[in-house]
């Protein structure tokens, strides 16, 4: 009941963003008897940074798996760049320009940093020279230029996070879906990462969907925020609206009265 109200509400709060790139309609995913995501509808508009938050087990990672084609939805529809991608696989969707990162095991740990990035350029670029050039450019953007020969698994944690973003960028996304990219980062690293996201949006023109636990970071960088709880949309709106929403406060603070 609350979900339909809040989605309507969210469309009022539209920022000055552009056309709809990604649209989910009544997305649902069940595992056996367990419902991980239900009746979840949202729109991602060109040029925005959309946050997706919620307590652990709220269905954020499942949502990522659904929209990136890593898992088929039980029901509901998905549209990306005006095409129905509901039944498309991960390869198709990523080629079309929706690239996701992973929360865990987000890189090729046994391969060098350079190889990690080059793998991601393989589909778009066909010559070794072009791949090398792209790899160096992306490594420069993400601060990895001095670690090109290091095995990805032995990078410091913060740089591993950067590398998973570099991999995604090398695949030339139109929409970048980041799954908890700030986990385990220290204070300075967090603000550097947020600057990078801002730069990705403004300089590279890439739209971002961000799943994150770090509430302060989400509030700072996102234009709009969706709140999931028990697999359902609890609230949606600007950071300010969401942070004042009573349902959200209750979901996060529990039933402390």
């Amino acid at each position: 009941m609350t979900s339909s109200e809040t989605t309507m509400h969210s469309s009022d709060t539209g920022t000055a963003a552009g056309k709809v790139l990604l649209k989910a309609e009544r997305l649902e995913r069940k595992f056996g008897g367990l419902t991980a995501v239900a009746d979840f509808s949202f729109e991602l508009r060109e040029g925005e940074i959309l946050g997706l938050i919620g307590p652990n087990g709220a269905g954020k990672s499942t949502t990522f798996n659904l929209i990136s084609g890593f898992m088929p939805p039980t029901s509901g529809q998905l549209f990306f760049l005006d095409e129905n991608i509901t039944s498309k696989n991960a390869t198709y969707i990523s080629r079309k320009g929706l690239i996701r990162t992973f929360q865990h095991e987000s890189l090729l740990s046994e391969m060098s940093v350079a190889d990690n990035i080059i793998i991601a350029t393989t589909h778009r670029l066909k010559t070794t020279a072009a791949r090398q050039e792209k790899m160096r450019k992306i490594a420069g953007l993400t601060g990895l230029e001095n670690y090109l020969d290091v095995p990805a698994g032995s990078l410091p944690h913060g740089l591993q996070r950067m590398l998973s973003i570099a991999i995604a960028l090398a695949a030339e996304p139109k929409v970048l879906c980041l799954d908890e990219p700030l986990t385990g980062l220290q204070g300075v690293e967090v603000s550097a990462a947020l600057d990078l996201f801002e730069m990705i949006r403004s300089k590279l023109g890439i739209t971002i969907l961000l799943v994150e636990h770090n509430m302060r970071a989400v509030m700072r960088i996102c234009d709009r925020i969706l709140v999931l709880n028990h697999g359902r949309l609890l609230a949606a709106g600007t950071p300010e609206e969401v942070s004042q929403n009573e349902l959200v406060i209750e979901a996060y603070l529990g039933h402390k009265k």
Partner: protein
Amino acid sequence: MLRSNPGLALCILIALAAICFALFSGDPYYVQVVIWVFANAVLAVTLRFVLLIGELNIATAAFFGIGAYATAVASTIYDLPFFISLLAAPVIAGLVSALFGWITLRTKGPYFLLISFAFTEIVRLFYTKSEFLGGNSGMIGMFPPMVLNDYYPAIAITLLAAILFGLYLTERSNLGRVFKAIQNNEDIPRSVGLNVIGLKILCFVIASTAVGLAGGVHAYTNSVIAPADFTFFVAVLALAYVKIGGEGHIIGPIIGAATLTLAGQFLHSFGPYENIFYGAIIIGVLLLMPGGIIGLGKGFIGSSTVRRDPH
């Protein structure tokens, strides 16, 4: 390329030396042994090639046999010319492997291992029951044409060495890098627009085509083939070559194949002790020197680039 890579230059030299030996040595037995070394090296290298995507492919043995039978059928039943019969081996092996890979590579790990094992035994069973293919006694009479007879060993070694070289180049190319990425964590290549299943099938087909050609060469080398030559044990030996030589580099299985094939020449007369020997050596190497012979070599040099197995 050669100047910057002395190891590669050495390998090419050894291959050339083997070809010369085949041309000018008068002793057919030793020439035969040299061909066996190269054929076994191809078996081991193709097994390792599919290990690049992380799958243990017992069906290497099956495709070796499919290549051999394809050549035998083309040459003895349809009387096709020598090079066409030889070409039938990689073509048929490639086609069958494409179909088999398309069906089975959606599975991985233990399922793929078991299915490739079952496939190998079933194909062998099929040979024994097929009168067309000579049943249990197999097929005989694959001879190279008279004009080529003196040169056949050299041709065989050249082809087998070319296969090894081709697989080496493929592994070093971007395709090889993608295969390793799939083994490392297949979600990553999938997430950046690569068709992981298609690439796995490609890897499998490349390896099977290569080992199929080696099977064709084997058919002409031996002139006789039988179902019993293509049991899963062929793949087990190939695995022993890979393990003993070391799987970190393509040269490992080649060294392993050479060492064990030569050692095997002395062991044929030992009967049951032969199995015990192979068994003991596999277990011993696995437990005591997981990097194989090349692992030891690198250990002595103290190189930091030895890839540790995640045991």
